[in-house]
């Protein structure tokens, strides 16, 4: 008898259509077929709220104009311009404007609850990029409200939870946002938060998967010029003062909670490959993802 699983996928930064799950399905469905599991894929689309907030607060236009003033050659309408706009908007609303971040988490929580329809125990969640920060926040907030985590499992692709903000008052630390969500954990350290979050899952049900060449979740060193700005040459880390991936202690805390952090290497350590190395397709096609996804479908 074949099992049935619901897979809910959450997108990351950038523009996404309501049916963005179609981009994920060609990777997920064949894996499910091979394991004999009947799969239903649903997309947790939250770009609509980000767009609505952007239209009201006019963030992306302001920030892109500011970047232009600072000398970044962003030609209006170009790809780099669009990517910069999306990046500023998503990061601003989620990590800088705290009240809007709460609004986004609550919207996602509502959408997630409607999508699962009480089937949390059979629901595997997959988040990519900012979606892989949002999902832990939503689940942890729910844990604070109910005292339990009902979801089957979680895969976080290129999660920014490993990032450590040097200016948390200005740009929130994605992991430390969790500290504010449950008042009993307001004094917890990063490792304690990570351990406690990991511990509310069954063994190996929480899985971080990171590309070693992805700036969002790995300490990538470059010897390269910035795309479109050849006079800016980077030797070493692009953002040297920011921790981008989990520290050894943090990985240990995840392991103690019986969860996993897996790494793979894809793409060139070139600045022009930054976006390509972060793409969701790279993650969905990676061996650690395939293995983990198959294992969780059978679990």
């Amino acid at each position: 008898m074949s099992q049935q699983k619901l897979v809910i996928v959450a997108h990351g930064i950038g523009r996404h259509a309501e049916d963005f799950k179609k981009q994920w399905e060609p990777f997920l469905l064949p894996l499910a077929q091979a394991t004999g599991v009947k799969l239903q894929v649903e997309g947790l689309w939250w770009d609509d709220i980000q767009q609505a907030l952007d239209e009201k607060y006019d963030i992306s236009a302001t920030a892109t104009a500011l970047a232009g003033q600072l000398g970044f050659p962003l030609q209006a309408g170009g790809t780099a311009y669009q990517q910069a706009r999306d990046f500023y908007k998503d990061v601003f609303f989620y990590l800088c404007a705290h009240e809007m971040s709460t609004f986004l988490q609550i919207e996602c929580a509502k959408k997630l609850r409607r999508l699962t329809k009480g089937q949390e125990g059979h629901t595997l969640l997959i988040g990519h990029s900012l979606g892989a920060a949002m999902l832990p926040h939503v689940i942890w907030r729910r844990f604070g409200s109910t005292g339990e985590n009902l979801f089957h499992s979680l895969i976080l692709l290129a999660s920014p939870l490993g990032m450590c903000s040097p200016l948390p008052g200005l740009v929130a630390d994605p992991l430390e946002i969790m500290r504010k969500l449950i008042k009993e954990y307001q004094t917890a350290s990063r490792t304690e938060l990570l351990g406690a979050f990991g511990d509310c899952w069954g063994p190996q049900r929480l899985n971080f998967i990171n590309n070693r060449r992805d700036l969002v979740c790995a300490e990538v060193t470059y010897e390269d010029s910035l795309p479109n700005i050849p006079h800016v040459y980077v030797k070493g880390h692009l953002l040297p003062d920011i921790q981008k991936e989990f520290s050894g202690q943090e990985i240990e805390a995840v392991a103690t909670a019986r969860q996993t952090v897996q790494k793979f290497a894809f793409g060139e350590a070139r600045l022009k490959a930054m976006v390509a190395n972060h793409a969701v397709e790279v993650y969905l096609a990676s061996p650690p993802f395939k293995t983990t996804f198959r294992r969780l479908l059978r679990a």
Partner: protein
Amino acid sequence: MNKPNHRYAATILASALCLASMVRAAPAPLPAQALRADFSAYVTRLNGLCASNSEVALNLFPVLTYLTTCRDGAQAVLARLGHGGTWDLLTGFRDQRITAQRIARKQLGGTLHVSPAMADEESVYRERIGSKLEEKYGRDIEIQSELFHRKYLAPDEGQANIFEALAQACPLTCFNESSQAWYRTTGVSAWEVKLRLEPVIVFGSSTDPAVLLSGGLVFNFFPSDFTDTGAVKKETLLSDYVKRTGLCLGVGARFHAGGQTLLVSGGWQLRWVTLWGLYDTAAHETFFGLGVSEWDWLKNFLPGGLLNFLPR
């Protein structure tokens, strides 16, 4: 002649009552009888787990301490049942259990999953207590989403800017689920900061344009009651028709035939219109002014692209 006055008085009274009823967003109280049965079952199960002594044999004293704390907390809930505030009892117990888990996890070296007794406790908690909190959670997020939409994304809310988005993080206006303040509904504050550049028409001996940098606090009127699933059950007179109002201060420039002069002002905002009292510091004169912070309605009248030149 007295009839209209009576009507005004009745409207003001009704509005005040609607305002007072805003805080009634708590779900219907849980029947104490059902809750007693659930907590009794939880206590019975935990008594069994504590008595089994397998944790003592395994030297897992933190597990035993955790189970005892949870059992004692549940017994305290049972003792207080029947005196109202069932949801407070339930959420209080939830918080106590989360704290106990945190302490036990530290003592156990990072994980609670060291003995079957913990899984048993989790299972009986889920069945008897967690399921009720799940229902409350579902209702709360529906209400919070509705109120956030009304507060920040209402179609007539007007256009804002980056500074206004950042300013909403101030303690009075930001979300706080644990606060029971009168102006909060399921944690969402009715207060909102406004920081805008606002064009104003000044009415004096001549009608002059002016621009004000304005800042203020606006109060959003929320519905008074919600259904068990979190849908709006009852609007108030204020939430239906007024939606939001507030006071603001501004400083700016008045443009007139003699050049530009500095204005200081105080205003009363009603939805997207502000009535300003303006003081011209050069002419030492006071004026009335009318400001508008929402420009989308102009889209229907202006040729494409012109809207981008209007202030935001």
